[in-house]
């Protein structure tokens, strides 16, 4: 008798009798003999609850986690704090164990939570339409690229301009997604001094290629904050759709991308109250103008009227989606990151207007502190002189692999190695979050000093 199965033998007997069968096996009479399994599945025999716990605890022990080592890793995923209120709410089973709210009367609370996500995230993106939701920052960017293709395909070449300075992983995902529709990708280089986009190249390529859109990232893969207004200006002039991938936390300090003229804003929602979980599950943010609403993939929650004329929440605009439009749908997304989008909404409510600014400031200030102090060390140099938010790229006189290794022995995840920034070698992307206090930052500095000595 196994716990997750609720029928006892007596139940089974009675039920089979009702159905008019003798054996459980005869329920499967439609399955042809040749493809029936004649052996048991070759899987581990069942674990008791405590044996399972032991197994998982031991697996978990074989990872070193960010409460054990000082974490200076970023690259799109950050060791930010996750308020306890977030977990407390999303662990409530009414949300956790429910399906997509296809029955709105039964799910007003869930729909409202998702609607509030859209509301709050729209404040951050500066654009009114927010989907609920894309899988992660990378697929959100790819979703946006497909949107560009759908929106522009009449007038433009099936080409996409993409900044070289987006996360390498994002570029890989983009390439996979574009491969299907045979959309060509052209890369736009960065300025080797500032780390910002090479605007001349951007202007030229836009003219030459007449692409469906331009995709870029800010802060970019080197941590550098781009001049977004300048980008959108160039794009607007050429009627090229501008697509930004951003870190939502930067909006604690910076103007919203919408304000600065971006057409489609995408990003990774992990910094907003979502645990690292080795990189997933996280949250793909996707947001755009009202005019592009029919092109946006994923769920949209809106207000409708019930039969008494009172407002109610519901899934809306479903004719864009696969379950209605089928092969004509914009994308195939069905299950999404609902619970994680609720996490980010709770996070944003929790920090609120002032806390959001404070949090961004703390990240900025701590990053400046670390950066400035590292630059005092002999032979340690910044690779780029653009402005940064919470991470920056450093160049070392010696092998960065050795540095990472030695820092590791001091319980420090020192940063992410860049294999390939133009011709420059031994570069490290170092990230900071609010969780690192002054003592931790000083420990990083003194440890590095020791290693370099």
């Amino acid at each position, binding site marked *: 008798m*196994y716990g*997750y199965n609720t029928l006892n033998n007596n139940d089974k007997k009675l039920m089979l009798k009702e*159905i008019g069968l003798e054996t459980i096996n005869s*329920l499967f009479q*439609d399955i*042809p003999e*040749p493809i029936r399994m004649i052996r*048991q599945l070759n899987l581990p025999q069942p*674990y008791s609850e405590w044996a399972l716990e032991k197994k998982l605890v031991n*697996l978990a022990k074989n*990872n*070193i986690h960010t409460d054990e080592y000082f974490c200076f890793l970023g690259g799109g995923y950050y060791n930010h704090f996750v308020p306890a209120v977030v977990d407390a709410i999303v662990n409530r089973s*009414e*949300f*956790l164990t*429910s*399906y997509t709210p*296809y*029955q*709105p009367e*039964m799910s*007003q*609370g869930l729909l409202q*939570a998702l609607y*509030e996500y859209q*509301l709050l995230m729209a404040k951050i993106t500066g654009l009114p339409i927010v989907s609920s939701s894309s*899988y992660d920052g990378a*697929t959100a960017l790819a979703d946006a690229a497909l949107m560009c293709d759908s929106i522009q395909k009449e007038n433009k070449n099936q080409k996409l301009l993409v900044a070289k300075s987006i*996360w390498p*992983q994002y570029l890989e995902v983009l390439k*996979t997604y574009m*491969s*299907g*529709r045979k959309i060509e990708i052209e890369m736009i280089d960065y300025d080797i001094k500032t780390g910002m986009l090479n605007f001349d190249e951007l202007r030229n390529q836009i003219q030459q290629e007449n692409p469906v859109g331009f995709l870029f990232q800010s802060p970019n893969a080197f941590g550098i904050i781009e001049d977004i207004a300048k980008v959108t200006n160039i794009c607007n002039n050429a009627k090229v759709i501008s697509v930004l991938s951003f870190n939502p936390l930067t909006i604690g300090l910076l103007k*919203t991308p919408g304000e600065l003229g971006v057409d489609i804003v995408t990003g990774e929602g992990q910094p907003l109250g979502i645990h690292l979980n*080795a*990189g997933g*599950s996280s949250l793909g943010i996707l947001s755009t103008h009202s005019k592009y609403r029919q092109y946006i993939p994923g769920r949209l929650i*809106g207000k409708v009227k019930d*039969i008494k004329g*009172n407002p109610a929440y*519901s899934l*809306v605009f*479903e004719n864009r989606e*696969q379950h209605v*439009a*089928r092969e004509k749908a914009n994308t*195939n997304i*069905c*299950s999404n990151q609902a*619970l994680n989008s609720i996490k980010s909404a*709770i996070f944003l*409510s*929790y920090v609120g207007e002032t806390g959001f600014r*404070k949090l961004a400031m703390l990240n*900025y200030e*701590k990053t400046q502190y670390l950066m400035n102090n590292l630059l005092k060390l002999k032979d340690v140099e910044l690779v780029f002189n653009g402005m940064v938010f919470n991470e920056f790229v450093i160049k070392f006189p010696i092998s960065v692999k050795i540095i990472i290794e030695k820092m590791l022995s001091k319980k420090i*995840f020192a940063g*992410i190695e860049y294999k390939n920034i133009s011709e420059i070698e031994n570069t490290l992307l170092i990230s900071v979050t*609010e969780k690192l206090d002054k003592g931790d930052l000083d420990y990083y500095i003194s440890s590095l000093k020791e290693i370099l000595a």
Partner: protein
Amino acid sequence: MTPTILDRSRNNVSGHQIFDSYFSNSQLPIIKGIRDKDMKLGLPEVTEVEIIRHYTNLTNDAFGVDNGTYPLGSCTMKYNPKRNDKLSQLAGFQKSHPLQPKKTLNGLWQFMYEMQIYLAELLGMDAFSLQPAAGAHGELAGIYIIQKYFEAERKEQRNTILVADSAHGTNPASASMAGFECKIIQTDKQGLMDIEMLKKMLDTNVAALMLTNPSTLGLFEKNIIEIAKLIHKNGSLLYYDGANLNAIMGITRPGDMGFDIAHINTHKTLSTPHGGGGPGAGPVGVKQFLRSYLPIPIADKNGEIYFPNYKLPNTIGRIKANYGHIDVLLKAYCYILTNGPQGLKETTENAVLNANYLQIKLKEILPPVFNKLCMHECLLNGDILKVSAYTFVKRLIDYGIHPPTLVGAGCVYFSDDLGSAILMEPTETETKETLDEMVMIFRQILDEVKENEDFIKNAPHSKNVSQIPFMAQEII
């Protein structure tokens, strides 16, 4: 309507405790695009207790498997074991960063490796990638594999993907998202794929047939062996949509049926909670000849060392960042380990038994569309109800039962002649008692219709809102 969290905002309060006594110099830096102090975003200002009460209140106007029966067809809303949730939150996983030095994530690689193997065995495939974020994403990965395979290996141009008319919307959408042309194969009178039509449609343009078996009509495609032969003879591939795997665990396997590629929705068959829409996970598996096409990285093993393997020569590349939904996959892993081979098989047996029992018990009210045994879900005909199926099932809400899947209210698509069909999937975690109760409630509603048709037409009556019309227009 309950006020939104924004409606609750007040000045100069907040829920947070965000400060660091050493770093309090909050002078705004000089950056292009800086937001001035007085430029507000419009985020709410609320205190912690208000947040907790607001959201607790919202959860109380929602409904999950923990609250009651949820026979939403095609969605496999089974019980989500609590131990899996708990163990997926161990700090060693929850707090590890994806870009840590590889050797500091040995537990991760080992878990992934074992999970790949278990899934391969469960589905009868040879290799698995855990990267896809959901079922549809697994499909997409599969389609890219198909595309790349014809490009790289077969050097052919094949632009057509065949799907059944009863297929889930994601199937055709995945195909066309990847640039394929999508062709539809009809269902025959018996609810099966029309093989004659299939034969006619097979040509050298056909890259693959996507199929879910049992189908979304709850029936097993018993001609699957022949179908596989036809497909392979045509040089095409066979893709398995694993959303209905709960019907066949330990009984038969997609790999044995002849499928070349398959995904599994962990949030259905493997009991990971669906979270009101996600995150789920949709690992994709392939036969050996396609292993090198899988998205990278996959977990691999060298002697006793586990590691992420990026060296798949034909890989389609990445399909998402990092390694997949680790938190979700851990729950699925726990589910496999607590069930074991026999437990998984029993799961399937009981799921199918429950569905057939429900079908029989409801047959006077809602006769089955196809008059035969069903698999893990039953497709019932709502035509003889005096009111529309849409309003009939709304009344279930008042009895604390989640309505089943209907056209437009659920994730499944039916052709026009099935416009009033009802797809019910009780899953194995409903007791005989809850099924009997549900049948009784159906009967009762039928009586209520007789007594007061309008009352039922306007159901539900117990919720904060009244009935919401089908595909209601948005208001602003």
